[in-house]
């Protein structure tokens, strides 16, 4: 098992004919991800070669899902159209048995996301991951299911679930698990925007219920209070060990650190508060990402898992 995606997931790419869509679509297929089609309004009926696979392009999500039975959609649509792409996907999935939407796009206006997330709320069988995230990956025995922009080759199938707000820091966490001979069940990048879909708690909950996952690495960053809320929730609901790191201990107040959501304002959202919340919740804390591997080993040993 794994969470949300596996080798049987059928993936559509919204924005497949764009540069990003084509490039990453190819990388996904090379990782043996089951890409079943793509959507670009006005380009329906075209066929596009990604790696060695011919993929059909559709005009709308409804049409694409009808033709392919897809249950996952990956969005590479430019920022100004991304929120409507999310809403279109959400409505189409809701009418066709549900699905997962993964939005990679960075720089979507925040009020567009407020609307998109509210629309997702009306679609109980639909989940949104992102935006402004690397996506989600479930490594398999040979390749796997890669729905995003992460480098596939750094992953390996295993028992560690990873959830993170950051892209490259997620890869760092993956490399850390590999350095102590542990693989990953599923890695989820929830993104660094202030308003997004899936949060830490959704991921922790899913990892807790997933039999393949035995421990979790959670990577937060400054801004907002999602880490504190997740820590509080975890202390009451999680039986599996969690290793946590928070980026931005040295970030100054009032300055946005790259991600739209990574900002300390009014003295709130600091890394210190988040680390403290982690510790109070019994989460194993790594102060340095290069230590995640060692801390994970300690957590596994403490729980009799290694």
């Amino acid at each position, binding site marked *: 098992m794994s969470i949300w995606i596996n080798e049987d997931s059928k993936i559509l790419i919204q924005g497949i004919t764009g540069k990003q869509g084509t490039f990453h679509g190819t990388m996904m297929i090379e990782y043996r991800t089951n890409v079943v089609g793509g959507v670009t309004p006005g380009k329906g009926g075209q066929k596009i070669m990604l790696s060695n696979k011919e993929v059909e392009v559709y005009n709308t999500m409804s049409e694409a899902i009808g033709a392919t039975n897809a249950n996952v959609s990956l969005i590479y649509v430019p*920022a*100004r159209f991304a929120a409507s792409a999310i809403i279109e996907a959400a409505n189409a999935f809701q009418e066709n048995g549900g699905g997962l939407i993964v939005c990679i796009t960075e*720089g*979507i*206006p*925040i*009020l*567009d*996301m*407020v*609307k998109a*997330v*509210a*629309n997702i709320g009306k679609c109980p069988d639909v989940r949104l991951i992102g935006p402004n995230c*690397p996506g989600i990956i479930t490594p398999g025995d040979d390749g796997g299911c890669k729905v995003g*922009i*992460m*480098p596939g*080759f*750094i992953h390996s199938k295993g028992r560690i679930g990873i959830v993170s*707000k*950051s*892209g*490259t*820091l*997620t*890869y*760092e966490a993956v*490399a850390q698990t590999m350095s102590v001979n542990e693989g990953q069940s599923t890695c989820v990048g929830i993104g*660094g925007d*202030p*308003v997004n879909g899936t949060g830490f708690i959704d991921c922790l909950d899913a990892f807790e219920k997933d039999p393949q996952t035995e421990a979790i690495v959670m*990577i937060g*960053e*400054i*801004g*907002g209070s*999602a880490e504190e*809320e997740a820590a509080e929730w975890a202390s009451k609901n999680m039986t599996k060990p969690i290793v946590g*790191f928070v*980026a*931005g*201990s*040295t*970030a*100054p107040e*009032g*300055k946005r*650190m*790259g991600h*739209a*959501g*990574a900002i300390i304002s009014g*003295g709130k959202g600091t*890394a210190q508060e988040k680390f403290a919340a982690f510790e109070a919740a019994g989460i194993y804390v790594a*102060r*340095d*990402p*290069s*230590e995640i591997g060692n801390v994970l080993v300690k957590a596994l040993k403490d729980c009799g898992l290694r």
Partner: protein
Amino acid sequence: MNIHEYQAKAMFNDSGIKVVKGIHCLSIETALKAYDKLESKVVAVKSQIHAGGRGKGNLYDPESGNLIMEGGVKIAFSRKEVEEYSSAIIGNRLVTKQTGKEGKIVNNLYVESGCEIDHEYYLALLVDRENKSILIMASTEGGVDIEEVAEKNPQAIHKIWADPLEGLLERDSISLATSLGLSGKSHDEMVIMLNALHSMFLEKDCSMIEINPLVRNKSGEMIALDGKVSFDDSADFRHPWRNHLRDLSEEEDVEIRAHEHGLSYVKLDGNIGCLVNGAGLAMASMDVIKLYGGEPANFLDIGGGATRESITAAFEIILEDKNVEGILVNIFGGIIQCDMVARSVIEASKEIGLEVPLVVRFSGTNHIEGKAVLDSSNLNVHTTKTLAEGAEKIVSLTRRDK
């Protein structure tokens, strides 16, 4: 993006939110003309900078550093006082709680008619990350720091949320006005104002509107006596008019230039420059430098689409900071290939004559090739396997007591 109070108030006025009459001035002469034109016995002479705390700030001579005047917002009772205050403000350096020690030179002034205040309130609209909707927050204690109120008297703060799909519901506006203790005309005006502000927030793609103080005057009118408006930069594409409101002197020149190269840069006070791909990893690199006893000089994310040109620009920007005594490059190759970064580092160092110690840590896509490229160059560069080793190395190479 932030705008000045005078710009925010013009926007309020256009959106049907009551303000008192005021005139934007760039000189003492125009300030005096504004006073004559306003025909108000009492006027407020207000420094216009993007930072808050102006009223309690101090003005200094930018050259001598001498204190010129206490308070960046003054009430003038005569033409002579307008002259006195505006000459103390324009061209001088205003230091407030929010500007940092270096303060900001005041180029803009706002001269505003007096207002007979009966009570001061606080009002703000912002995007609530946790509830994923627009939060409207008001308090009966205006004119003071909201953080202070939140700490000392949290029951004075009242909150409502706008529904993302239905909009701001009238019953919520009414309940907020009521919980502020407003009645009659003031209550009605408050409900109308909340609606107008919510519409403006949506229409202009704001990220925050803060009115502190919002006042009830002697005749029961509700008036925005101050105004702070920030816009969501991600929505710039649908608001070309924003360019006309932009005050570049308020923005860090180097951050703007970095942005033009697709880089995200924030200057800090330390001596170790950082060049990293990814915002989270860039923050983590700073943190680990600090953990090993060093001080980061900057945050710099080269982004997923970095090229040789943008990496050269990144080095130039890092080295503009004269405090930089060493640079840590930390790349986890995903889309970005480490060997491309390696070649860019070599070319950039030749082009700009890199003299400070350089430590490079590569991981991910083509990291072996990247290391080989650096090793076979004659560049004075140390390569390491992990971020911790890289941070430790650059800290030891730049230690001042070495």
